């Protein structure tokens, strides 16, 4: 990499650090005003490039402190990169075990009841870099997650007029994106029919009030709240109802986990199940890793989400997990969408600190110290940790 781009990065980092200290100073005068001050001071225009071809981009965790993640900094993930789509030619085909197959344009879809739904999208590999021993794949750390307001139509409404045959158990999804080599498996997956026809499953064409950007699957993607990102199928072209799960690598080999924890040396023959529901998880947006702050009041804040039910509790520890204090959950709970939390840290003693956050959901699931190892590095939800210093 060139010296120039190095310089630019460090400049951007410096600006972010600077804005953080501005935020920290503002904190002393009272918490409620700070969020906005920090927001304005932040230079929120960069994503972490995990891969440039295809683009796999991670949101810096410091940005995850608002109920909606803006499209411009929403994480990006795909296997083969976006296809070129001529929107006038775009159609959604519906087939398989149905009485008659259908072909729908975007205009046809907009005739169904329009639904707005806030929901958290998390890549199933978010946190893969934290697994030991390390596993192959994009080394996501914390920010392959975001919360957006999705607008679309319910899949169940769209297929209501189509009679699905009784043998159909799964719905396979195909997209306009295609693999670089004919010998490379296509990215196609299926979801169980009950989940496909759940009222929260949407065919979405808008994201945060904008037409769905092409990097995020435009013109049409699946929204499957509570389930990991591999079900939120992008650039949707065709859905088929069928008896069995989709064939192929991305359904039968990838995105599967052992049903129970396995030793990391690996026992290949244990039965595996598809990665589906997000586990309970909280992330610390502030303070940032490595930040140095003066003694005084500081805001510890972040987001928490779960795949089933809603959040009931987020706790913060400032002593490496020996004691935990309850943080305040903001706003109303909404299944499938994240909630912000905040904690007022009265930091009087100078020294290094490990700030930790631990969430509990309405099913009683608690964030573990570390997620059991699995060979694909999926669904990491270990207690989030940030190292910082009061000086």
């Amino acid at each position, binding site marked *: 990499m060139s010296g120039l781009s190095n310089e630019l990065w460090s400049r951007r980092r410096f600006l972010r650090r600077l804005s953080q200290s501005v935020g920290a100073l503002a904190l002393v005068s009272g918490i409620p005003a700070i969020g906005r001050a920090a927001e304005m001071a932040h230079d929120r225009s960069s994503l972490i490039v995990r*891969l440039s071809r295809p683009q796999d981009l991670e949101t810096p965790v410091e940005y995850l402190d608002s109920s909606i993640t803006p499209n411009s900094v929403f994480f990006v993930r795909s296997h083969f990169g976006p*296809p*070129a789509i001529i929107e006038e030619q775009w159609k959604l085909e519906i087939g398989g075990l149905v009485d008659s197959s259908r072909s729908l344009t975007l205009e046809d879809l907009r005739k169904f009841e329009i639904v707005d739904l806030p929901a958290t999208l998390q890549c199933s590999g978010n946190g893969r870099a934290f697994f030991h021993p390390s596993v192959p794949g994009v*080394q996501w750390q914390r920010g392959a997650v975001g919360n957006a307001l999705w607008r679309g139509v319910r899949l169940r409404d769209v297929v209501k007029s189509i009679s699905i045959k009784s043998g159909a158990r799964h719905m396979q999804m195909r997209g*306009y994106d*295609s693999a670089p*080599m004919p010998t490379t498996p296509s990215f196609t997956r299926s979801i169980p029919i009950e989940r496909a026809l759940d009222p929260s499953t949407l065919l979405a064409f808008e994201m945060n009030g904008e037409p769905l950007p092409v990097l995020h699957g435009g013109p049409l993607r699946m929204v499957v709240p509570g389930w990991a990102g591999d079900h939120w199928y992008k650039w949707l072209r065709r859905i088929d109802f069928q008896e069995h799960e989709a064939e192929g690598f991305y359904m039968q080999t990838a995105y599967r986990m052992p049903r129970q924890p396995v030793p990391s040396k690996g026992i290949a023959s244990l039965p595996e199940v598809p990665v589906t529901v997000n586990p309970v998880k909280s992330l610390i947006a502030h303070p940032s890793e490595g930040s140095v702050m003066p003694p005084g009041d500081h805001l510890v804040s972040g987001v928490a989400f779960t795949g089933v039910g809603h959040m009931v509790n987020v706790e913060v520890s400032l002593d490496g997990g020996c004691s935990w204090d309850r943080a305040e959950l903001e706003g109303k709970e909404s299944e499938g969408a994240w909630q912000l939390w905040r904690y007022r840290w009265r930091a009087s003693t100078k020294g290094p600190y490990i700030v930790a956050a631990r969430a509990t959901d309405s099913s009683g699931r608690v964030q573990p110290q570390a997620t059991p190892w699995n060979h694909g590095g999926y669904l990491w939800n270990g207690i989030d940790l940030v190292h910082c210093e009061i000086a």
Partner: protein
Amino acid sequence: MAALIRIVRGERAARKDRSPQSALPSLRKWFVILGCTLLLNSTHALAGTARSVAQRTASAEMRANCEICHDRGMLAQQRLTPAQWQAEVEKMRNWGAPLPPDQEKSLVDYLSSQFPVGAVPMAAPESPSVTLSDSVKPLADPAGFHGDARVGQGLYTDACAECHGADARGKQGPNLVQQPILYRFNDFQEIVMRGRRTMPAYSSVLDRKQLEDLVAWLRTLQVTQASGVGRAEAHCTLVAALPLLRLAAATTADVDLDAAHSLAPQTLYLSQCARCHGRSGHGDGPEAPQLRMQLHSFSDCGWMLMMSDATLFLIIKDGAAAAGFPAGMPGFGGTLGYDQMVALLHYVRGFCAGQTNGQNVFAKPEPNRRRRWCGMFGAIALGELMRA
């Protein structure tokens, strides 16, 4: 290097309106080029000792096989055991990476040593999000764009199908169907004309209008078509307009590498040149019968003596047309590094080793350098005279 490129570009621009009067300044430029390459060579020799030949070979393998689909960051961010790397490389070979079986071990060794378990994780760069999302947005075609898909189909068959597959769904080069680059003509032109990674430059093979035709044809292909639908037909109406096309990057996949050819220059030659020029440099490679011209043998030592190192370097870098030969051979300057091109030059000279001294100015200065320099100047002067 930048200076050399500028001069070479100037040379190419000057060549367009070549006339007897322009021979003299052109000749002067050749001497400047020669001087620059000599200067560069001495710097290069110092830097080059640091990296072992084996590492350079493996690095070239990574470039040729992994970076067709991945950027280097995909490899650099992994921290894997040799067994995990082995599994990944096997998986990718099954998925279409054109890695010859006998190169698998050296690539696995290289990846295991470069990106091992326990190494400090790579720091990921940051980029402005706007720039990144913009890179896939369709752009309006430039003014005057007028591609003819029917013509493009024939061009595709001759120039691209060899690597990208007859139906453009990828072979050794990646799938082109419904790719955003097709709607960003300037980016498309940049890649095709200058080459990228293992793809050679086509600036001496295709012109701007032909690029428009190509794009027009590629845009007609859709992922919804069954594979094979829209396949470019072998019959091509435009063939006559193209002097020589079926040259696109050869790959190591078709070349039987033996132990003697395991070092970097041989690997490079066999992977990049041998399909046309032949393993022994006689111009009798498997693709040669399809070319509409006879290739000179590298072991025709009288001919090779006439060719200066600067000329050979220019041909390798910018293609045959850049040195005044019939267009056809693409340039490798955008895809091979300076040291790789020099290594190729050296290797090609080796076919006449012992008969023409077998040395060249890029490798090491010789005691009898003066005599050979005279020979080279003579060849340049002769070449200029013939052109004039």
